[in-house]
């Protein structure tokens, strides 16, 4: 019995070895960044490059980013993180509200032009931000919204993907439930808030994680609409910091700081992510 168990485990050793090797290769760039983020800056200014094992890890690098200025003209990673969290949260909440409302109309209400309008909503998924970026930039300039949270979030508050995702879910709610609620005197808003939204929790979670991840990881738009270092998101802040050779170790530390929360998010909500990937297209 025990011998059989041992043999079964032995036969699995090659499988685990291959898995571990693959995991190690895939995580190698992350590891090197982590190792480099713990070296003192002097190690980067000499040849050969810093070793893969920081013998005297300099944890200060992880706290240097919060210092005002830090001699770089930038406000540091604390401010960048604050901006990113603010922007991603507003975009996520905005998308949840606008697409819940629109999906309700498409799923539960009858009105002329419904099919055409829904097709138009879907068509928005085919226009990536990159294509519309020049006029959008002009619009934000015209509104005097450059270097503001409004400017960073405005183009992303509505989503065809989210509307589609939630409408598909709402359609699975039995019409008898809606009829019964109407008999009880539930109006549109009461039914939406007290019945439809609580039932759609998992669809809403899928949309929320997509919206947050996309908003957090944006690069082109925040690069265009922010000039003031105080308004930079963490992605733009990191990009700018890598151009400064005398702070490169802190740039690496900040990269790890920006990556860690997203890894936790992806790990925690992996099943919602998979559901969303097949529910519609993903925008970069």
């Amino acid at each position, binding site marked *: 019995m025990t011998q059989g168990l041992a043999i079964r485990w032995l036969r699995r050793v090659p*499988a685990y070895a291959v*898995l571990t090797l*693959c*995991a190690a290769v*895939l*995580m190698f*760039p*992350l590891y*090197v*960044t982590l190792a*480099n983020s713990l070296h003192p800056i002097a190690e*980067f200014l000499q040849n*050969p*490059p810093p070793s*893969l094992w920081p013998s005297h890890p300099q944890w200060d690098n992880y706290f240097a980013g919060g210092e005002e200025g830090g001699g770089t003209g930038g406000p540091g990673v604390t401010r960048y993180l604050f901006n990113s969290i603010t922007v991603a949260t507003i975009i996520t909440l905005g998308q949840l509200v*606008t697409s819940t*409302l629109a999906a*309700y109309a498409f799923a539960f*209400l009858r009105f*002329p*032009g419904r099919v055409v309008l829904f097709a138009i909503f879907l068509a*928005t998924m*085919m*226009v*990536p931000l*990159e*294509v*519309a970026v*020049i006029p959008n930039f*002009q*619009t934000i300039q015209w509104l005097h919204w450059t270097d503001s949270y409004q400017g960073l979030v*405005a183009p992303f508050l*509505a989503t*065809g993907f989210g*509307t589609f995702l939630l409408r598909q879910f709402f359609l699975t709610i039995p019409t008898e439930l809606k009829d019964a609620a109407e008999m009880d005197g539930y109006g549109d808003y009461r039914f939406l808030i007290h019945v439809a939204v609580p039932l759609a929790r998992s669809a809403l979670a899928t949309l929320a994680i997509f919206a947050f991840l996309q908003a957090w*990881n*944006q*690069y*082109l738009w925040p*690069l*265009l609409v922010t000039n003031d270092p105080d308004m930079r998101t963490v*992605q*733009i802040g*990191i*990009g700018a910091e*890598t151009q400064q050779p005398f702070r*490169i170790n802190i740039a*690496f530390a900040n*990269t790890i700081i*920006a*990556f860690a929360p*997203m*890894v936790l998010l992806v*790990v925690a909500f992996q099943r919602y992510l998979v559901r969303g*990937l*097949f*529910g519609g*297209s*993903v925008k*970069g």
Partner: protein
Amino acid sequence: VSAPAAAKGFVLPKGARQLLRALPFLAPSIVLFGTFVFYPLAKSVYLGFYIENPFRTRQIYVGFDQYGDVLASSEFISSLLVTATFTLYTVVPALVIATFLAVIANQKLAGIAVFRTIFAAPLAASVAITAVFWLVLLHPTIGILNEAIENLGLARVDWLNDGGWAVAEHGGIGKLTSWISDPNWALLSVSMATVWMNIGLFTVILLAGLQTIPNELYESARVDGAGRWAQFWHVTLPMLSPTLFFASVVGVIFAFQAFGQVDIMTGGGPVDATNVVIYSIYQEAFENFRYGAASVQAIALFVIMLGLTLLQFRLVRGRIFYR
């Protein structure tokens, strides 16, 4: 709803009442889409009809002439060639690697969830973060990949600053052969980073695809004496092909949208070796301030991506049907 209005002897037509009821739900999205999706699309077409001086103080109407000039220009064709190469470099290797990872992560083993999570982790990385991870490996002075290459007795590679065929002066057939003999290392560098990022996404997509393959197919294949390799070729691959196709279209769309990794790693250079279409639009619009010429490229990109997205939709719909 209509009772009080009817009592007053004034009744809106049914359609109008329905619209009034639906409008508050739809208005926020309609206003936002109008402002930030449809208006800019029309405006881009319009901007393409005008050329302007560098300070944008004067615009001259040139109609479709600018469309012809820009789309036929060697710069635009070169950026399309770079984008196409980048697409090939990023989608194919990422698909092959992700298929392997998904298959080995689909085994029934204790602790397999840990490996699935690690393989999916690059999904969490933004383009900026990915660019930094690879900058660490490829950097001219601190990059450790060159150290490893030197230790193996090979020549160092000037990763981010060697444009290879893209900057060499080759004409006609010479350009084609140099595509292999004179590698564009800068584009390969940006591609390696992008492949790493795509691996996470593709592995997640392919794992979901693998899990829909019925176990009975493998059992009957085993009964027929198929080994692991034969099972992979005759069961896994055919059953996974719709998912592989879906993932590849997603990858192509991502490749056409690539910007951040280029901006951080190479800045489109050396010369134009990594000047993908989006980067070219960015430079034309926000560095040269030629909105018209940039808009023409944006419209061309839109048409290309529209075709790709329609293809992707057909695939998603297909999946939903047979699941």
